[in-house]
């Protein structure tokens, strides 16, 4: 890093103060609670109890992985076809993709209840045409659907932005060297869009693995995720702050490990485009 001028430090100051108060301090507090007991004495007993939550951890990771894979399967072709459209259509589709992001995600999740509920839109429709209603709400599928729906723009956007920057002459070069459309996709577009994919995976997996709202609203109390555990424990009173902090800390370490692994996949020189 080259030396920064006083001016540029000054410009960065408001954010640094913000980050110190609302990022660094809470992290330190979390670490403090995680390694102390109710009286404030150092202990490892919180960490020792983590094992009780391993099912919630496991389910969270499983659901988040499933949601990430489904999101990727939807988003990659979508981004690919977007880059093939006319520029004006690309902008239009982009707005449509981003539109749901401008609405509060609690409301968006809530509206899925009225679609999936036993007396919701889908089942009302099925009954009206004489079919048996389906049990949709409060299933793992509903939770994963909620995650996919909420986070799909975060996958499409980075993939699209990387893909649309691929030099057209590279595709011509590949075609010139004998590649048909499929081979161009496999040998040029997919490898060159990997940074976008990595970034999208990160942006979908991380919020999915730590979510609690989606699982509560769409999963009932059967699909208990680690986010729900943390939320529940913090809500249960100050005597649970220590164990809740310990779980949070572990979850954070896990996420950081994922990020580290992912960034190794993306191109070595550019250091990836993880946002």
């Amino acid at each position, binding site marked *: 890093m080259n030396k920064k001028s006083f001016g540029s430090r000054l410009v960065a100051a408001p954010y640094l103060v913000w980050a110190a108060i609302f990022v660094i301090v809470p992290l330190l507090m979390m670490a403090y609670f995680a390694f102390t007991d109710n009286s404030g004495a150092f202990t490892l007993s919180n960490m020792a109890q983590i094992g009780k939550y391993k099912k919630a951890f496991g389910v969270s990771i499983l659901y988040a992985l499933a949601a990430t894979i489904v999101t990727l399967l939807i988003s990659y072709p979508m981004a690919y076809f977007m880059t093939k459209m006319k520029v004006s259509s690309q902008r239009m589709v982009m707005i449509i993709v981003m539109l749901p992001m401008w609405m509060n995600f609690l409301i968006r999740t809530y509206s899925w209840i009225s679609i999936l509920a036993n007396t919701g839109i889908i089942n009302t429709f099925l009954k009206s045409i004489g079919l048996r209603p389906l049990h949709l709400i409060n299933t793992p599928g509903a939770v994963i659907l909620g995650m996919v729906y909420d986070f799909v723009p975060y996958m499409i956007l980075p993939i699209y932005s990387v893909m649309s920057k691929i030099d057209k002459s*590279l595709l011509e070069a590949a075609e010139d*060297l*004998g590649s048909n459309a499929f081979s161009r996709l496999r040998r040029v577009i997919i490898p060159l869009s990997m940074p976008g994919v990595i970034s999208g995976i990160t942006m979908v997996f991380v919020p999915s693995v730590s979510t609690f709202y989606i699982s509560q609203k769409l999963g009932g109390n059967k699909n208990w995720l680690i986010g729900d555990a943390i939320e529940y424990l913090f809500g249960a009173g100050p005597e649970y702050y220590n164990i809740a902090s310990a779980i949070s800390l572990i979850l954070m370490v896990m996420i950081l490990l994922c990020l580290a692994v992912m960034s190794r996949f993306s191109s070595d020189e550019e250091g990836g485009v993880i946002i």
Partner: protein
Amino acid sequence: MAKENIVELKNVCVSFDGEKVLDELSLEIRDKEFITLLGASGCGKTTTLRLIAGFLDPDSGDVLFEGKKFNGVPAYKRQVNTIFQRYALFEHLNVFENVAFGLRVKKMPEAEIKKTVSEMLSLVNLEGFEKRRITTLSGGQQQRVAIARAIANKPKVLLLDEPLAALDLKLRKDMQKELRNIQRTLGITFIFVTHDQEEALTMSDRVVVMDKGKIQQVGTPKDIYNEPKNAFVADFIGESNIVDGVMLKDFVVKFSGHTFDCLDKDFDENEAVDVVVRPEDVDIVPVDKGMLTGTVTSVDFLGVHYEIIVDIGGFKWMIQTTDECFVGDNVGLYIEPDAIHIMKKSEYSGLYGDYSSYSEEMDHLSEIEEEEE
């Protein structure tokens, strides 16, 4: 050189957004020749190349390859390869994999790929670069990778789209020679696109001079230089003084108020013509011995010779001479019959060949042009 045509364009028209880029263009390209499409930015030379590569189909007219109609055949099925203007190398692959790209697409056995790639890399003097990343290579080295990648596929025709435009002068000269050698070694057809007339003259078997989507002249570099067909070609290739003249009869032309012997014939009596005289073909002589006389208005020393501008009755001539002159001198000009070239009048008459507004920089302004389209 083989006589058969490997590529033929027949009355090809292409327009983009209603604008005609190629206008009824016909061209025959012979097997194993080094042919250059020469012209300024926007003349349609890159479009012609893309037509042959298969990135583009003509609105009307035919593209023939080895006598067979080629319209609509996608680029990946054509036995031609392209070297792109900015190389278009795959940065996610190393040098070896770049060169191997086309071979892998063809599913060539691994051992054969290894052999071919190392042959190609040694042909372009890049042995030992197999594992290098593209981003760590210099411009000249990237250029070589691009060449190796294209010729590894053993194409029958290699298309080169201003491949040297991004290189500095010295490297350009070296690469010109090298490309020429590679073409001879491989014995395949090279179709080279450039806006640099010197490059076209030194490298090519034949040059195609293009302007406004039409071919102005096709010929050997010597033909193009010595026998330009119209004022555009005369001006585009090298320096030339182009004056209005009248063909009095066979072998006699009158211009600038003097009657000259020349070597041209088959014009109508008293037909108005364009007369080309190259600056190096004019001798400076004392006023009393000159066929024409004028006043020196500018003198530039270029090392090999002086480049002087002489005002003859209001028309400024450029003359290259080793005799020193000074601004304001009255001088005589002597022109041998074989230095005079007569051209039919064309749409380009009167547009070129007067050095009134001449400035040295103008030649260097258009060095790196933007990609067409």
